[in-house]
């Protein structure tokens, strides 16, 4: 084991038997995959049966910690929840920030892996290597936050709780897991937890974790904290991510009415610059964070909720809704019910277009109708009426509805697109298409390249490929250390800076070159998991709408992304990633990145190389 940062073991919890055992994790694995999303990927290769239904009790649900958790480094109180997604059938890893990260790690484990299912709706207490399963009783049906409050009141404030809401209990395929008001949001992890009849998991700190160089870590933490107060994070402090909305509208990258437009005329009614003064009531921080990006808004009936760009984009412009009260209420309701706001908004927007085209008989569900939006959210969480179809996500729903409705279902691999228009951000278009998790802005931050001014964002080409790879690699490291991406702007030399932090905590003599290789390894390990689960190159693609319909910019230019251009970028991405034209890693790449070991556990050798 390294001198610091890890316990070198994962707790394997069998909910069928109510038993648990600690399984060692070799130091070489920790160094190769770091933690968080990276280590979670390795654990999925190890513990997830190939080809399993994500909602089968045998499918694992993992809470994976990282070496920086428990240190005073700002934004490090984060963890990854990893599973096979019931929405995509592929790997998903959602990150969240909260005290759960610290308490979970200080159970004495680098990961907690749940398999099996409880006999009845229950919650699970994890105390060192011991577990206890208790009936959920009247916790069932409660919002996650209410369940969390009750459980901490009952068991004591030292316990930290991750819980699901009603949507997770109903196996909505984009249900979330929540804690401290934060959410592991994307990919339907709440449905996986619900399929295990597990309403909540409780952890409490019972040990400490060492750092190799405590004085060095403290000094680095002070420095990082100071830098976190600078201009690079001003946006997050001042307005939060909602600051994106009007800026994106100005540059035609605000997805509107199910991606039929990239500008929303009524956007000012939702812009933070316009409504913050009247509606914002507080600013909060995640655990161990000095940025403070959470901006709390007051909605109808005085109810307070955290507002983010992705909530507002998905439940506002994407559905054509400009009523700020309604968007705040919809966002709050998604949080209460345990729904991923992006997939909720994306699926409802798709349904609104279906209604408009006469493909779904639900005349009440119209673009711009705030009450219809709120009704649809309730029906989805309860799986009632049309909601039962929409609870499957836009891809599955479009397959049921047919009539070419898949052409405008805005997803990649089943995951609904975030609020970054791919036709006007063409490095992002590539990033969305090839990412293992599906259409996702956190695993691929290629929009950074598009908005840097370094290339023409409307003319995807080789520069865009380089930008997409670089941002994907950086995300792989940040998601594994784990550090918040809102901190990225403070690192002048990211890989050397991150290597230094890892060295101070673990004592490993790791440098930027090694960390860059680690990033590539993690990106491809995710791809290899998907390959094992049946991935083919056709999945690295965008919906037809983005390749057949152009957008007109205010400048007069046309933003068009052709199939041929996307294919050229994907070919180049594969070459630069060391993949065959089929998207499968070459033998040389497997060897260089020391990924052959994954083949031995998965019998996918016939498909690889």
């Amino acid at each position: 084991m390294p001198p610091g940062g890890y316990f070198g073991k994962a707790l394997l919890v069998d909910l069928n038997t109510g038993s648990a055992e600690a399984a060692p994790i070799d130091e070489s694995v920790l160094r190769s995959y770091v933690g968080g999303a990276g280590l979670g990927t390795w654990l999925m290769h190890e513990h997830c049966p190939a080809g399993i239904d994500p909602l089968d009790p045998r499918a694992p649900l993992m809470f994976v910690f990282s070496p920086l958790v428990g240190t005073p480094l700002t934004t490090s109180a984060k963890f990854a929840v990893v599973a096979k997604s019931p929405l995509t059938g592929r790997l998903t890893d959602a990150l969240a920030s909260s005290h759960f990260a610290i308490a979970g790690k200080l159970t004495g484990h680098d990961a907690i892996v749940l398999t099996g299912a409880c006999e009845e709706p229950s919650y699970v207490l994890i105390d060192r290597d011991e577990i206890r399963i208790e009936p959920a009783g009247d916790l069932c049906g409660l919002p996650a936050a209410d369940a969390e409050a009750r459980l901490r009141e009952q068991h004591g404030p030292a316990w930290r709780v991750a819980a699901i809401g009603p949507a997770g209990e109903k196996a909505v395929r984009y249900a979330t897991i929540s804690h401290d008001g934060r959410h592991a949001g994307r990919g339907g992890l709440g449905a996986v937890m619900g399929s295990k009849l597990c309403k909540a998991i409780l952890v409490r700190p019972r040990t400490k974790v060492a750092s190799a160089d405590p004085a060095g870590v403290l000094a680095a933490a002070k420095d990082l904290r100071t830098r976190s107060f600078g201009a690079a994070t001003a946006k997050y402090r001042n307005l939060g991510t909602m600051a994106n909305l009007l800026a994106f509208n100005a540059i035609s990258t605000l997805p509107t009415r199910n991606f039929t437009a990239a500008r929303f005329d009524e956007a000012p009614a939702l812009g933070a610059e316009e409504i913050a003064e009247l509606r914002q009531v507080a600013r909060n921080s995640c655990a161990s964070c000095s940025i403070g990006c959470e901006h709390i808004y007051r909605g109808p009936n005085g109810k307070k909720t955290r507002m983010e760009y992705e909530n507002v984009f998905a439940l506002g412009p994407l559905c054509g809704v400009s009523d700020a009260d309604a968007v705040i209420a919809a966002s709050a309701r998604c949080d209460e019910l345990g729904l991923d706001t992006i997939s909720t908004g994306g699926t409802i927007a798709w349904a609104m277009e279906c209604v408009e085209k006469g493909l779904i008989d639900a005349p009440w569900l119209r673009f711009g109708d705030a009450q219809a939006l709120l009704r649809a959210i309730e029906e989805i969480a309860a799986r009632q009426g049309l909601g039962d179809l929409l609870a499957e996500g836009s891809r599955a729903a479009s397959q049921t509805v047919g009539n070419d409705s898949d052409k405008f279902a805005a997803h990649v691999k089943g995951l609904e697109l975030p609020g970054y228009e791919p036709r006007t951000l063409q490095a992002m278009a590539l990033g969305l298409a090839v990412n293992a998790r599906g259409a996702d802005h956190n695993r691929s931050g290629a929009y950074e390249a598009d908005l840097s001014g370094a290339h023409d964002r409307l003319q995807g080409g080789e520069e865009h490929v380089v930008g997409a790879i670089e941002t994907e690699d950086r995300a792989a490291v940040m998601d594994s250390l784990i550090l918040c991406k809102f901190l990225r702007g403070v690192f002048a030399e990211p890989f050397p800076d991150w290597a230094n932090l890892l060295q101070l905590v673990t004592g490993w003599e790791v440098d930027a070159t090694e960390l860059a290789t680690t990033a590539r390894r993690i990106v491809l390990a995710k791809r290899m998991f998907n390959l094992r689960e049946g991935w083919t190159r056709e999945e690295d693609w965008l919906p037809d709408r983005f390749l057949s319909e152009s957008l007109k910019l205010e400048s007069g230019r046309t933003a068009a992304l052709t199939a041929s251009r996307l294919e050229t970028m994907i070919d180049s991405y594969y070459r630069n990633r060391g993949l065959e034209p089929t998207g499968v890693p070459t033998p040389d790449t497997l060897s260089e990145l020391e990924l052959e070991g994954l083949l031995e556990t998965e019998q996918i050798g016939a498909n690889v190389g």
Partner: protein
Amino acid sequence: MDDAAAIVLAGGRSSRMGSPKAALEWHGSTLLRRVTGIVARAVSPGPVVVVSAPGQSLPALAPGIEVVADEREGRGPLQGLAAGLAAIGDRAAVAYVSSTDVPLLHPAFVRRVLGALDDGVDVALPEVGGYRQPLSAAYRVDLVNAINTLIAADRMRPAFLFERTTVRHLGETDLLHDATLARLDPKLSSVSNLNEPADYERAHALPAPEITVERFGPLAMADPAKRRQTVGAWSLGEAADAAGLTLDEHVVAALNGDQITRDRHVPLVAGDTVAFMVADAGG
């Protein structure tokens, strides 16, 4: 504009000006940087080619602007035109051709002239102030062979080309029929070229074009009254200065909702809108 390119002829002798026009200072930039930036906006994503004299030293240009050298110096515009068209090759069907001494050129003028190259037309030739404007005109790229034939015969005046091609003449009324151009350049100053130092001094003293500046996110919060304001600015740098903003690693600008840049030298023209926003677009 799809399938269009631009050529800027920078190799003239500038004998009356007394110094190379291409390098003349223009409000923190140069004439050539300004004119290439303006035509680039009009033909984007098409190529922009600067034709220089053999051995000529040029001021700094924006990334992506190509430079080719004339084979022979002092042979007139057809020589440069041929070099520019040859450099474009099959990358565009039509090209706007400009001299380097037109700082008041507006992209709307370029688009208007290029738009006049209908099927069957080889050259769109403006006539402003009673003069034909062959260096503010649009040409089909495949005229390169005809031009080379004229050069081989030492017939170096543009008029010889117009005699043997289909030319669409664009009078002032024709040009101003375009509502956008009529609004943004009603006096057709786009063709005003600078031949002598006095021309340069007069033009340089003109008030800067009126630009709309917008601020977003944290940049909008310090003074809500300045979220949208009008300033005079010849370049992005001047617009940032007028707005009291610094184009550092934390701030980017979008020009007319399109090009994202931090380049202070990006030229601005009347009617432009510049949006300043924070560089980190994480959400």
